[in-house]
């Protein structure tokens, strides 16, 4: 069985016939050269596959393509506007919030979710907000600093 769907990925509309079993992350990675969304685990623990679905963070390895029919998806590639880095991207760069970079797209989008729901989080709230995303390189400390800086940038406007 194939099921017709239509999705908007980073502002561009796509129509596809997909197998119902196809995971959203596979759809995204197959759609056209946007491979920034990563797969890190099978069990919804690591968060490397985090994307924004209608502006809200979800784990794209734990969603089916058919479920998101009609939705708008933003991946790490869609965060920068006109080549201008998103404040979170800038902050991760400034604060050395990444090493191997594999968890980074998901981590940045998880941080995006945190700041969406809590624009001025405490350090403890930042650490809790990132509980669904794993990083094996940084020990998280510079990620926390990066999110803190992004929140501060936002405060300044």
């Amino acid at each position, binding site marked *: 069985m194939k099921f017709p769907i239509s999705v908007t990925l980073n502002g561009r509309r796509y129509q596809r016939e997909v197998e*119902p*079993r196809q995971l959203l992350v596979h759809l995204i990675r197959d759609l056209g050269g946007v491979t920034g969304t990563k797969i890190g685990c099978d069990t919804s623990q690591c968060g490397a596959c985090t994307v924004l679905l209608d502006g809200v963070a979800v784990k794209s390895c734990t*969603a089916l393509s*058919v479920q998101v029919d009609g939705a708008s998806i933003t991946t790490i590639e869609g965060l920068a506007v006109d080549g201008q880095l998103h404040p979170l991207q800038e902050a991760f760069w400034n604060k050395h919030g990444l090493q191997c970079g594999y968890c980074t797209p998901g981590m940045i989008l998880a941080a995006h979710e945190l700041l969406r*729901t809590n624009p001025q989080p405490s350090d403890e709230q930042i650490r809790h907000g990132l509980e*669904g995303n794993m990083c094996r390189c940084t020990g998280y400390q510079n990620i926390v600093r990066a999110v803190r800086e992004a929140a501060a940038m936002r405060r300044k406007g």
Partner: protein
Amino acid sequence: MYAPEFDYYRAGSVSEAAGLLRKHPGAKLLAGGQSLIPLLKLRLAAPAAVIDIGRIRDLKGITVKDGTIRIGAMTTHAELAASAELAETCPVLAQAAAGIGDPAVRNRGTIGGNVAHADPASDLPTVLVALEARLMAEGPDGKRTLDAGGFFQGLMTTALKEHEILTAIEIPAHPKGQSSAYAKFAHPASRYAVIGVAAVITASGGKCSSARVAVGGMVPRPVRASSVERALTGQELSAESIAKAAAQVTENLGNEVLGDIFASEQYRRSVASVWVKRALTQAVGRAK
């Protein structure tokens, strides 16, 4: 990880979903998918068909009316956690929902999917048992209401009949003097409850006029800690009386306490009272 093939149907209404269930034997209902999709990926579940009820509008939202909180089955954990009404009228539910999985999981996972899945390590079943919630189901024989106390029957087993769909959950809003809290000993990897305790306390004049305590995570289905409830009722709400009452929990755990490589049955039995004490203490602290 790649799921096996299945057919997919999207229901626009509860009755349509019920019809699809009848038409496709062995079909699985898909709500937020946060439990089902991992099972599909690991090929631990291989249904011939999946029926998506995640878009049924009638199944969404939280309303509080005449002292009753009604929560649509497709309401997400994030919505529960963020609900100001819920924080006011039933803090234990908002608190437990805020501790499920992680933010991205909470954005997709639903109360109905969670409850119908009946994972013993899940948080919401325990909370609903303590709240004496009523669960609304709709099936081929019409609608019926089930008590949370009898709904959870064992590991991944509920009182829902074949082709029956959980549609909503009703909870009495806390009356004056009532407060509630959830204490969780979370597994460091899965974040599921190794032990979860929900406590609902009613106080008047510094004394406990009623207590409802449920324990989950460590048993195949949430159990009411009736010995704890009895020991506390009528007592002054002091640290000593709470600790003394909490210690009674071992009497309510039965002989089916779960154990695993992280926390053995014996260990869970040994520390259960600590988590009961913490839930009670927090609930009492919330009382106004």
